[in-house]
């Protein structure tokens, strides 16, 4: 069952080669878009990134400064930490849902799927706003607790790291659930039965058969959530505090201050980290198959 449409990216690259006479036509078809994106997207981004080493002449001084920059390390460390926490959170909360989803049929399955896909119907901005409304000093949770006389003073939940974690987990949960559910659905239903008939208890069936077979989906989901977390901007900006700044916020701040070389270095770092992760995991045995399997 195709939960995400992105698997066809791999299909694109995997198509068989064709005769040279078709190349001319192909270039005419693909050329305009390639040209367009080169001019309006690739060149600008590359030019900006170049500012990290061209300032205005070739120099590595900015990168060197970065290596010693305390603020950078703090922010980068926080970004990594947030990504790890959010990934773990989505894994812990998402796996049971994926498991249940793969076993459901009919109306229950439809309802669950709709709820899981619900966040996709709302922009990140709206979802972040929802958490502002929930966690604010005069937000819904505090008002409810005050109304029930459970607390006197409002709890400080907004503009904290906690708020960032909760909101990001909320937003990224579907990206963990869908790949895992997709892989689980492809497991031969006879396998858990065979395991039970051979004497495995329900927990044993899960631990020894279902869990190992779900690994490709877990890997794909983990990768996806982690990479997406690194680049998050809107949510931490809205619900996070000044001490919970993430790398993208630092970049935006530096651009506001017109510190282009510095901002460029930071961007290069963020981009490099993202690409490195993707490349690293692509080379792990079985991961490429895992991605393909979970995107089907």
């Amino acid at each position, binding site marked *: 069952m195709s939960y995400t449409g992105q698997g066809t990216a791999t299909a694109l690259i995997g198509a068989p080669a064709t005769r040279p006479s078709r190349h001319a036509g192909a270039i005419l078809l693909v050329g305009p878009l390639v040209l367009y994106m080169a001019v309006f997207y690739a060149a600008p981004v590359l030019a900006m990134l170049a500012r990290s080493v061209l300032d205005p002449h070739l120099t590595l001084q900015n990168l060197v400064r970065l290596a010693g920059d305390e603020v950078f390390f703090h922010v980068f460390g926080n970004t990594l930490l947030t990504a790890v926490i959010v990934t773990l959170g989505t894994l812990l909360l998402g796996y049971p849902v994926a498991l249940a989803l793969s076993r459901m049929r009919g109306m229950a399955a439809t309802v669950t799927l709709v709820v899981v896909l619900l966040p996709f119907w709302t922009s990140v901005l709206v979802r972040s706003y929802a958490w502002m409304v929930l966690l604010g000093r005069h937000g819904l949770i505090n008002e409810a607790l005050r109304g029930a006389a459970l607390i006197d003073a409002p709890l400080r939940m907004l503009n904290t790291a906690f708020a960032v974690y909760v909101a990001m987990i909320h937003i990224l949960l579907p990206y963990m659930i869908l790949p895992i559910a997709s892989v689980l659905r492809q497991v031969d239903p*006879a396998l858990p039965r065979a*395991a*039970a*008939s*051979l*004497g*495995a208890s329900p927990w044993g069936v899960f631990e020894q058969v279902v869990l190992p077979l779900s690994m490709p989906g877990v890997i794909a989901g983990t990768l996806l959530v982690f990479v997406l977390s690194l680049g998050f901007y809107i949510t931490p900006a809205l619900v996070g505090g000044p001490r919970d700044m993430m790398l993208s916020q630092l970049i935006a701040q530096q651009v506001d201050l017109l510190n282009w070389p510095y901002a460029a270095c930071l961007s290069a770092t963020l981009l490099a980290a993202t690409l490195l992760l993707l490349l690293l995991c692509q080379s792990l045995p079985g991961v490429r198959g895992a991605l393909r399997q979970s995107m089907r």
Partner: protein
Amino acid sequence: MDASTSVRYFQESNGDASFGACSYGEGGNTAGRGAKVSLVGLEKRFDAVGAVCGISLEIGSGEFLTLLGPSGSGKTTTLMMIAGFETPTAGDIAIDGRSVVGTPPHKRNIGMVFQNYALFPHLTVAENIAFPLKQRGMDRATRARRVADSLAMVQLPGYEARYPRQLSGGQQQRVALARAIVFRPRLLLMDEPLGALDKQLRENLQLEMRRLHAELGITFVYVTHDQEEALIMSDRIAVVNEGRIAQLGPPEELYDRPRNRFVASFIGESNFLSGVVRGIEDGFLIVDCGWAMLRAAATRPAPIGSAVTLTTRPERMRFVDPGAMPIGIENRMRVTVRETVFAGERCRYLLRGENGETLILKEQSGAATRRRAPGEMAEIAWAAADTVVV
């Protein structure tokens, strides 16, 4: 399978009383090794649909019993209830005298072979086979030994390190079998295990399974829709139709003495003729079919004047010379040959009877037999003993 392997397999008795001190040799005493299974009034409804509508069956220790029937007949559902994957809506299942309806599948200690083998793709052959032993807490060394013995028993020695995807269909099936018996269950359930294999492979594995059954001596309950397979392998067959048992008995009985139209046409081919009972003589019924009086074995009570359907197997009929009166072949009929199909060892004729009925006749090919051509008129004859009331 060689006898020494099977000897070693069963000599490790672990103090297990059910194997006891059976002395064992080739064709040795296998008594008591298989479970007795008792199905009493088994019913299963899915919403308003009755899949199984009252099945009662006693399966003896060490018996090879086949549940035979078309798809949707309820045979697989019955098997699943014995295994514990479906709960009966009514009725009871007892294994070795103890009711198991409340026991979850993983505690029933029953071996099971699934249609598509259900081998764990992420485990090697050895790990697959060792799986049930691991659940039972057996130590590594013993597990390895049992796995090796198991593989030898299904004639796949040395395959421990392979993965299921590296095996052919037949090999996977044998691994599935090895896995299902390695923990020495007293009962083995099989859900159309040979369905996905080609004809030649299927026939080979059928014989292997019969051999395995004889060596192990445990109870086999086999589900299939292939009647030929059932006839080859079973001690007894329960023909299942629409949730009920249409007939239960050894293969010969089902073939020679079908009790109803369904069994007569599901197993092998049958010719049907209708008539009215006019008399009873020496255990044979005299039936008036309009164009002749036929004699039929009185396999069921049929009062004079009642309408009956008679059935005969196509290979029990033969062409006769019009004047000839061979002894013991009491029933005759004039026919026109409609179609002749030569199939190597046999010739299959489609005939048109006196009243326009379609009959099938199968004849062994040979130098002595003359092949009849379509359009030819002929006379056929068959024994009263081969004519059965359904």
